[in-house]
């Protein structure tokens, strides 16, 4: 970064082919551009064209007139979206769940990482790392089935074994919204804890052991070592991961809130998030106006959040920023 043109020319390698004709320079790379072309085309189709589709939120979209022909209706869709209570509920749910996930994943992740790194037996260490990663590799459909095995009304293990053992009557889990913040957080932690923990483990492994040696020789206890060496070294990773998560605070994991809840309408008050709302608006209710407004709202706010958050990370530690 910041190398002047003169310096670049001075260190220009002797063996490279130099060519003073500007056209020829680009011509040499044409095969490369051709190789990149499929990717470029795909990105345009899959990512960039839909970006421009955000304008659908400002139109009265109908299938006949299509994307270009549908009439504009300004902020009507947004007004329509925000006059319902839905907008508040889905935003509240999305943000609160994400906050809970962030806090739990950090505290539990660091705890697990420290404990695992301190495990002396190599085989046990590997086993623990494998165990926490396994749920991460599952699809939400499968997780939904597993949760169903626990919570099913007729067949679930809770209603058939656990609750009777505690002397309580069965609960219709999929109709009880109050229980779900707890269930959602538990399931999400079960599935996702491996990710953060692995990252913290690799950070801890990168800490120079001589720090710990010196601390031990100074008589520092284990707890003090953690407080003064391990945690400070973890701070950059934690901050980066946290801020990136905050940048995505408007985005929920669709699979979690759709599959695990079995799309049960009774649970919407505590489990409807922006992503499920958009899906239902699009595919179930054919309410394209509200769905596209919600989607645009999510994308735009998310974008500004990431920019803001990256700026913050930049101020904290330049190399950890995304850009």
């Amino acid at each position, binding site marked *: 970064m910041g190398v002047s043109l003169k310096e670049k020319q001075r260190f220009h390698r002797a063996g490279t082919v130099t060519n003073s004709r500007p056209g020829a320079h680009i011509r040499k790379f044409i095969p490369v551009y051709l190789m990149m072309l499929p990717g*470029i085309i795909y990105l345009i189709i899959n990512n960039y064209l839909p970006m421009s589709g955000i304008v659908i939120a400002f139109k009265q979209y109908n299938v006949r007139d299509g994307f270009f022909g549908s009439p504009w209706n300004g902020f009507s869709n947004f007004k329509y979206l925000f006059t319902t209570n839905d907008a508040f509920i889905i935003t509240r749910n999305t943000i609160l769940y994400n906050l809970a996930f962030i806090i739990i994943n950090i505290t539990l992740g660091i705890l697990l990482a420290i404990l695992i790194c301190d495990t002396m037996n190599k085989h046990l260490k590997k086993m623990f790392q494998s165990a926490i*990663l396994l749920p991460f590799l599952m699809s939400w459909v499968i997780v939904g089935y597993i949760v169903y095995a626990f919570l099913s009304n007729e067949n679930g293990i809770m209603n058939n074994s656990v609750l009777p053992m505690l002397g309580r009557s069965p609960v219709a889990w999929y109709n009880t919204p109050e229980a779900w913040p707890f269930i959602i957080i538990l399931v999400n932690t079960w599935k996702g804890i491996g*990710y953060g923990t692995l990252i913290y483990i690799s950070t801890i492994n990168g800490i120079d052991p001589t720090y710990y040696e010196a601390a031990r020789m100074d008589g520092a206890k284990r707890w003090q070592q953690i407080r003064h060496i391990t945690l400070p070294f973890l701070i950059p990773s934690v901050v980066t991961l946290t801020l990136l998560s905050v940048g995505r605070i408007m985005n929920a994991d669709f699979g979690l809130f759709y599959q695990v809840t079995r799309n049960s309408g009774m649970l919407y008050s505590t489990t409807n998030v922006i992503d499920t709302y958009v899906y239902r608006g699009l595919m179930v209710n054919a309410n394209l106006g509200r769905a596209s407004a919600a989607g645009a709202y999510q994308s735009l706010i998310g974008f500004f959040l990431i920019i803001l958050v990256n700026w913050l990370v930049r101020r904290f530690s330049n190399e950890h920023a995304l850009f």
Partner: protein
Amino acid sequence: MKKKLTPYHIFSVAFLMLFSIAVMVPFVLLFLSSLTEEHSLIRNGYSFFPEAFSLKSYEYILASGKKIFSSYLVTIAVTVIGTLLNLSLSAMYAFGLSLKKLPGRKLLTFFIFFTMLFNGGIVPSYIMWASYLHIKDTLMALILPNFLMNAMNVLLIRTYFTGSIPEEMLEAAQIDGASYPHIFARIVLPLGKPILVTMGTFAGLAYWNDWTNSIYYISRRTDLYSIQALLNVMITNLQYLANSDFGGLSTGESAIPTAGIQMAIAFVAILPILVLFPFLQKYYSKGLMLGAVKG
């Protein structure tokens, strides 16, 4: 210097053991549920201590599960084709990005990077893929949307290419008259195998686990259900269950996959992941840590 075994270590291992067991428990339940005899299931529900065991669920799948087999094939096809296409597009794009002298390199890097920051949302994507590109109810509907290229993967591949493939090697090849595609195929790809395997694992797992492309784009061609989509539809669509032929059943059995059979199908869906787990764990962990280091 040998570390002393302190109470901390003992408690730590005990805690981790309990935690690991707790994490594994749901899988055990899934497996046991698939082996539980049907009437025992109806009477006692899913349990860790089934009253009676039975292999009937798996027998059923093997003997009559035509739909299950075909969805398995669809999943395998989509995963293999999708992963190969993903790696091809990603590697070629990353190769271009790794060439320091490529004109427009910064722009092309930003072009893919920006997709990580902002996306148009489901509604425009759906309209485009379904209404304009007409991919609904085709195999391509499972492969093309969303998973064919991932900015994070491409950038990680690029970082690996620039970090591990010395520029001198590329320049020497150029002086020998090699074209860029030739350099890509003969030098970069072989040297880049580690990162490609890692990214292939990510892409492959994403395709294997995907069910969202199906719920959006597959409505009539039920033979194009992946196994995840099949599992999804079994929950959401009792009509589908009641009407469709699961492959011929003997009299006296219900046509709807029972509770035990559903669990068996789910277990069969995760079986490849369990079997390949050591391999997956190695490369997935590597990939996650690479991603973390990058930022």
